[in-house]
């Protein structure tokens, strides 16, 4: 049981390039999330999904796109990379457990845009 996996671990992009950050979970969780964490800051929610085919914006969605064609995968797309998108990106998933929703996190992807 691998949990939440993310690829790549590190990436350097030039301004204007595009890329997809991959996220896969093998726990059959319905909920999946993408966060970014800037230095010295907390995690900010980019997008989330409550199930296959359903996505919604979080706190900081501009410059990103997501899709959720399967329960397992939740890729995050950067179309035109900008220096402001330099950050560490975390994917997470959760299941419903009563009234609480524990999130399981991936190891993160460190992205630098220069």
């Amino acid at each position, binding site marked *: 049981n691998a949990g939440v996996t993310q690829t790549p671990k590190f990436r350097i992009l030039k301004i204007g390039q595009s890329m997809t950050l991959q996220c896969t979970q093998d726990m059959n969780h319905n909920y999946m*999330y993408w966060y970014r964490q800037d230095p010295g800051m*907390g995690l900010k*929610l980019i997008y989330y999904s409550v199930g296959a085919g359903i996505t919604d914006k979080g*706190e900081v969605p501009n410059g990103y796109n997501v899709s959720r064609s399967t329960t397992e995968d939740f890729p995050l797309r950067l179309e035109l990379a900008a220096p402001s998108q330099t950050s560490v990106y975390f994917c997470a998933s959760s299941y419903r457990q009563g009234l*609480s*929703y*524990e999130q399981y*996190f991936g*190891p993160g992807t460190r992205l630098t845009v220069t």
Partner: protein
Amino acid sequence: AQRVTQPEKLLSVFKGAPVELKCNYSYSGSPELFWYVQYSRQRLQLLLRHISRESIKGFTADLNKGETSFHLKKPFAQEEDSAMYYCAPTNTGNQFYFGTGTSLTVIP
């Protein structure tokens, strides 16, 4: 707007001393509150949740609705408690708002 404040970026205590990591929140409705922890070279993981009223690794957290606080406490800090701690309320279960985190160092 939802807001989570962890006023201490860095906190150092001696081994065996009590530790308290502060969290204040500004939320509409009645949020559920969580503490997450990230140990060195490990993933972010759940430490405890308010609704469970649990004590994990000796840590407890009391929700004070009047002060809108959810401080994390442990009576006797251990070296293995050194980590980054995040307070994370949610009001729907769909969106979590993480604080900026407190880096705890327990000095031997």
